[in-house]
């Protein structure tokens, strides 16, 4: 436990010292700002039947941003340590492999959440300054952010696993990106096939659809379970991969 906390702190410090992290979060907030601007103009025109959270989270801009942000945040986790040779040093310190994986994941996940924090100000601004009080459903806000948290955790865990496979950060980022693209494409299976299996598959595994649901305030237990168990599985696989060095 002690080792985990020490490593977690070091990871977080690392993010606040890393130019890549600042560039990534600036890019992220810029895109979110544009989305918010579009959202504000749509609301200003008074288009009926549009939910604020749905506009924020169910835009293609949002997903394209995630496809860039997640690989950029996770690529360095293990690849950098491996390239510098510090991984061996880290793994011969009195800290378990599990704690190392948990701390790396914890660090990037907390940074990801902090990156999202300023977007709450958008909503606050909307709430305070719109003339005729835009209907902000607290349930939809909470569910929307829950979706961000769950899907983010899952993809960050995927990025962490990718980072373990190589000493080259660029390759780690490319593998992560490719995997995420595949996951999104699986979500559009029902566009090319009406086969019931394809339809069910894309309904269950489409991240964009899941988030659309969440942003309407609907918390379906299936995607919650899928994301949580997927995250745990990926982290477990990462721990195993780290342990596998011993037997190579």
């Amino acid at each position: 436990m002690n080792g985990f906390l020490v490593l977690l702190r070091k990871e977080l410090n690392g993010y606040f010292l890393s130019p890549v992290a600042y560039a990534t979060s600036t890019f992220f907030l810029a895109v979110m700002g544009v989305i918010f601007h579009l959202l504000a103009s749509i609301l200003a025109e008074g288009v009926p039947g549009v939910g604020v959270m749905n506009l924020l989270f169910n835009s293609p801009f949002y997903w394209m941003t995630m496809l860039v942000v997640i690989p950029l945040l996770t690529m360095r986790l293990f690849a950098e340590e491996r390239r510098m040779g510090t991984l061996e040093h880290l793994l011969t310190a009195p800290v378990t492999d599990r704690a190392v994986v948990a701390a790396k994941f914890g660090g990037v996940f907390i940074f990801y959440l902090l990156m999202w924090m300023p977007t709450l100000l958008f909503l606050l601004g909307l709430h305070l300054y719109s003339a005729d009080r835009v209907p902000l459903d607290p349930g939809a806000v909470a569910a929307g952010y829950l979706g961000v948290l769950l899907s983010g955790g899952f993809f960050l865990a995927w990025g962490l696993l990718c980072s373990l496979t190589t000493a080259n950060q660029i390759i780690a980022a490319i593998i992560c990106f490719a995997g995420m693209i595949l996951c999104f494409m699986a979500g559009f299976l029902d566009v090319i096939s009406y086969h019931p299996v394809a339809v069910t598959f894309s309904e269950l595994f489409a991240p964009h659809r899941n988030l659309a649901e969440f942003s309407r305030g609907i918390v379906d237990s299936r995607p919650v379970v899928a994301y949580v168990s997927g995250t745990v599985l990926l982290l477990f696989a990462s721990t195993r991969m780290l342990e596998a060095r011993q037997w190579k």
Partner: protein
Amino acid sequence: MITVNHLTKHFPGRVAVDNISFEVGHREVVGFLGPNGSGKTTTLRILCGYLAASAGTAKVAGFDVQRFPMEVRRRIGYLPEQCPLYPDMRVDEYLHFRAALKGVPARRRRGRVDEVKELCGLAENGRRIIGQLSKGYRQRVGLAEALVHEPDLLILDEPTIGLDPNQIRQVRQLIQQLGERHTILLSTHILPEVEAICRRVIIIKDGRIVASDSTDQLIRHMKGEARIVFEVQGPRDRIEAELGTWPDIHRMEIETLGEWHRFRLACPRSADPRARLFSQAAASGWSVRELHLEPGSLEELFVSLTAPASSGGAP
């Protein structure tokens, strides 16, 4: 402190460590030698718990490295080859981080970090960024890190590689100093280093131990030829002719320095013709100003034990 029993490590397609056994006692300073690729680093990595053995056991302070990896790691200070560090951290920050990771209690951390900085000559460099330090200073940071949790055992993998002669000297002195308080396993192929620091050496070749004894003993029992230096004043041709008839002397090299002739004689290690040389010189009226047996160096021993068979280096 270290007990290794029939340790074996296979990598796909090759055996890196082949059934080795050795022991290192409390506060011993042992040199772990071998050519590149002989299995040194693999053995050290198994001891530190980075790799798992394919067969056999290794114990550190009585704890099996496989079954009690945390107990073992707490007792080891490990400086890997190339001394990997985080280049964007400051020296103090790095040492505090590693001290915390290694379980040094918060209230003692500052004191410990200051102590190891002092010991490794880093007292003035705490605020410097590691990436901007010279190789010698980085090596010191690595050593300070290895020491920060007061480990019983220090495992140093080629600690002086890439340093300039002054830095090598400083690091060597530091290791010598540390040998008074810690058990040290020092892997290197810089032999004068081992001769200077270690009381005992283990020589490994192709994953097997080919020699393990005190440095002096090993050299004394070295196979092959001994060299005698015999500096004498007299008629060179007669001396050469006389010594040429001695069956003990296989070869001689002669160097003339003014009136003196310096003979370097190669003879079997079992024969020691020094007494006879002196009597001969006295009987023939030659003046002698030097007569000694060259002790042989660890380097010769190392080459004789580890040179590939094809080069004919092994006697």
